[in-house]
């Protein structure tokens, strides 16, 4: 029994442990905080890469907590989707917090820095737990930790916008959690199990006896996770929350947190609920229409914003629509596109938020109309922003193109070209609000604070460069990530 066999649980537990060490370190060994945080997330990254290697070579496996076999013990299911998500979370999380170590210094008060790392590590742990777990109630617990931690990293910046946004988020998220718990109760009531695998086995047998319970539970899951993933029309909390938070928080919230709920939804829809159920209710069509509205309306709202971070937040609503579009279309390519977009959007959106954060850090302005000529005075963040913008529009050789390609192909595969047209229209809308910013940034005379920005610290520049090269790398060599993504999609659709 070597330590690598316990990597699935260690990826979560080490983060939790370090989370609670942080305030102590902050008190006695202040300079250890940053390396400890980076180390903990780095460890999770190594663990997730190792798991990925294991899964890719020997196939998915289960990890049982304390060797208690299910249905008594809690299980972690290390399958293609889970390792993919874990890797996404840890890579992006690591880069964002590396950036954050400098950016937070000017956004937060000195004494709460340790607590920020605590919350951040908790958030990481809960996200990894959520994607790995194979147990409904365990998932619920991680969802709650995630909800509190993500509200925490917003409200830790004690401006009144942040507090208010965090409260709104918390209340709506509590409604979501309520729905989630009720749904779990309904499932438990009819099946007597909480383990995904066992529930999935029991559901077809009891479906004729309690069809209503099962449908209601599905609806409650959709609402509960939909609120948290900001699926239109349950997105009302997102723009405030993501735009007022400190930039690293915004990056991780928009880039990762909303996606994790989407992954939970994917797991429930494809792994737990029997396919026959989908014939009983037009649940996939509902998801598709919600996604379509999210894509179009999110982009439209983004066009009229003048605050850079608010615009990015509305754009996230549209982008989560892409992920759900991929989920709802029920074809292999579309599901691949949806899952791939989780990764691609995580990179693009966190890069966009971080470059916006860098611009705010250096110039103090967050109004789009003030950013004339910023490309000349602050090249790195502006080029990163432009790359992100191109990826959002879906210009080839950026990673955004690849996910759009798969989504559009998937919608044609199932004979619904309408949704391919939706993707195109939204790309155009993305172009309408992203490209003028890019143009404005490079052509025009810098004025005021934009003309003489503060120099950016090395950490911020390095993070932006890393993410930017990710956008290009996964746009030119998508096969690097596509292997695990297509395996994940195939195994979800039962093709493996």
């Amino acid at each position, binding site marked *: 029994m070597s330590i690598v066999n316990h990597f699935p649980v260690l990826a979560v537990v080490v983060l939790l442990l370090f989370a609670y060490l942080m305030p102590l370190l902050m008190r006695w060994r202040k300079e250890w905080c940053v390396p400890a945080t980076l180390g903990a997330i780095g460890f999770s990254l190594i663990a997730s890469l190792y798991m990925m290697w294991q899964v890719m070579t020997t196939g998915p496996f289960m990890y049982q907590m304390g060797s208690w076999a299910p249905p008594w013990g809690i299980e972690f299911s290390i399958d293609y989707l889970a390792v993919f998500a874990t890797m996404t979370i840890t890579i992006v999380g690591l880069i964002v917090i590396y950036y954050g170590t400098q950016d937070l210094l000017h956004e937060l008060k000195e004494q709460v820095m340790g607590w920020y790392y605590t919350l951040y590590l908790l958030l990481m742990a809960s996200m990894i737990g959520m994607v790995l777990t194979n147990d409904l109630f365990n998932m*619920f617990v991680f969802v709650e930790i995630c909800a509190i931690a993500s509200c925490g990293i917003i409200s830790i910046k004690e401006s009144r916008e942040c507090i208010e946004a965090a*409260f709104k988020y918390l209340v709506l998220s509590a409604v979501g959690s309520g729905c989630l718990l009720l749904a779990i109760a309904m499932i438990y009531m009819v099946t007597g199990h909480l383990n995904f695998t066992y529930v999935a086995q029991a559901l077809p047998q009891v479906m004729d006896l309690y069809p209503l319970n099962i449908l209601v539970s599905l609806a409650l899951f959709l609402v509960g996770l939909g609120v948290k993933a900001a699926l239109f029309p349950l997105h009302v909390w997102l723009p405030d929350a993501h735009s007022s938070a400190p930039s690293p928080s915004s990056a991780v919230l928009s880039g990762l947190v909303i996606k994790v709920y989407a992954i939970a939804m994917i797991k429930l829809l494809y792994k737990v609920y029997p396919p026959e159920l989908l014939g009983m209710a037009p649940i996939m069509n509902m998801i598709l229409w919600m996604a379509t509205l999210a894509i179009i309306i999110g982009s439209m709202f983004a066009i009229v914003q003048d605050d850079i971070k608010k615009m990015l937040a509305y754009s996230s609503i549209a982008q989560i629509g892409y992920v759900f579009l991929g989920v709802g279309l029920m074809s292999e390519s579309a599901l691949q596109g949806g899952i791939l977009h989780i990764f691609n959007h995580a990179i693009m959106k966190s890069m966009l938020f971080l470059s916006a954060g860098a611009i705010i850090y250096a110039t103090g302005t967050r109004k789009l109309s003030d950013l004339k000529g910023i490309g000349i005075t602050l090249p790195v963040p502006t080029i990163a922003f432009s790359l992100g913008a191109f990826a959002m529009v879906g210009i080839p050789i950026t990673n955004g193109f690849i996910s759009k390609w798969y989504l559009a192909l998937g919608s044609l595969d199932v004979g619904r070209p309408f949704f391919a047209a939706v993707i195109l229209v939204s790309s155009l809308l993305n172009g309408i609000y992203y490209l003028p910013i890019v143009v404005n940034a490079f052509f025009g005379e810098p004025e005021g604070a934009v003309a003489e920005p503060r120099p950016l610290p090395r950490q911020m520049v390095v993070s932006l460069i890393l993410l930017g090269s990710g956008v290009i790398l996964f746009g030119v060599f998508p096969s690097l990530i596509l292997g695990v993504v297509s395996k994940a999609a195939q195994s979800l659709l039962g093709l493996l």
Partner: protein
Amino acid sequence: MTMIDILLRLHQNSYYFFAIILFIIGFHTMLSHNNLIKKVIGMNIMDTSIFLFFVAIGYVNGGRAPILEPGVPYTAYVNPLPSALILTGIVVAVSVTAYALSLIVKLYKHYGTIDAEEIMRIRGGDIQ
């Protein structure tokens, strides 16, 4: 189905029925009140209703706690899992409540009111 049948069924499923009523009361309180504290109370009522529901699922008529004692004959016992889960749920709910209340305190410091509409008005005035 006569009225009596319905009543009979409601009586048989009274746990569920009242849990749903509580859930709706909580949900309604949460959404319709402007007072932030009342929102949090509504949230708690909603959570409680789910806890009751969950515990009721595991209840067996005439069952007892699942503890084996020497000499006592084996009888029906209550499913302990829901109760155990709900303990966790309660802990989660308490922490969310505490956090929400602390946010309300901060909001009161910033805005001098705990009325959601008032806060919106003050903020709206800020922006324009």
